[in-house]
């Protein structure tokens, strides 16, 4: 697949997801929200798979890879802490609300976000284990004794 074709495909997928989101807002009933979530994940997976099929000659530059890795890591660290602070703040606010319906809705939302944050840690741990094994992080020899 040519790189330009990939960009066109990714744009089409993005527009499709946006339409699904707009439909969900208008439909406003179960399972609209779940369909939006599934479509976003499916769209991201599809774009990722399409990206693997690009066959244009591209230089995988080590400096750019290093820059991307460091940027991604710092972004995730800052985002995780900021999102955690926001979630805890929301949870605290939910506890002080008198209206039981709104309180329940906000509590559920905050708990969902906390589960999401915990999932990020689990995914990070899983990737660390995977790449440690891949690059010999667990290797031992006679000098390890």
């Amino acid at each position: 697949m040519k790189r330009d074709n990939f960009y066109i495909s990714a744009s089409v997928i993005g527009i499709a997801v946006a339409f699904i989101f707009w439909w969900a807002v208008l439909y406003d009933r179960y399972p609209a929200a779940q369909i939006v979530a599934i479509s976003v994940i499916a769209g991201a997976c599809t774009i990722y798979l399409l990206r693997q099929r690009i066959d244009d000659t591209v230089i995988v530059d080590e400096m750019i890879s290093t820059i991307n890795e460091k940027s991604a890591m710092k972004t995730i660290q800052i985002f995780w802490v900021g999102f955690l602070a926001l979630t805890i703040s929301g949870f605290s606010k939910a506890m002080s609300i008198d209206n039981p319906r709104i309180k329940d809705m906000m509590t559920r939302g905050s708990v969902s976000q906390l589960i999401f944050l915990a999932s990020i840690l689990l995914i990070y741990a899983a990737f660390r284990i995977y790449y440690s094994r891949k690059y010999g992080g667990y290797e031992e020899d006679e000098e390890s004794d």
Partner: protein
Amino acid sequence: MKNRIKVYRAMNDLTQEALASEVGVTRQTILAIEKGKYDPSLELAFKIAKRFDVKIEGIFTYEG
């Protein structure tokens, strides 16, 4: 890490773009290495040294 890539490029009449293409990186990477802002990987350092037919120590100076 100091290096003499620019010197060797001049000796071999090689542009940054040409050297980058030969060792498989972008021109920006060669530029960053020459300015001392980016330290190349071992593999890249060997490739550059091999291109100029010198030892790594002839091009790169480690200031540890």
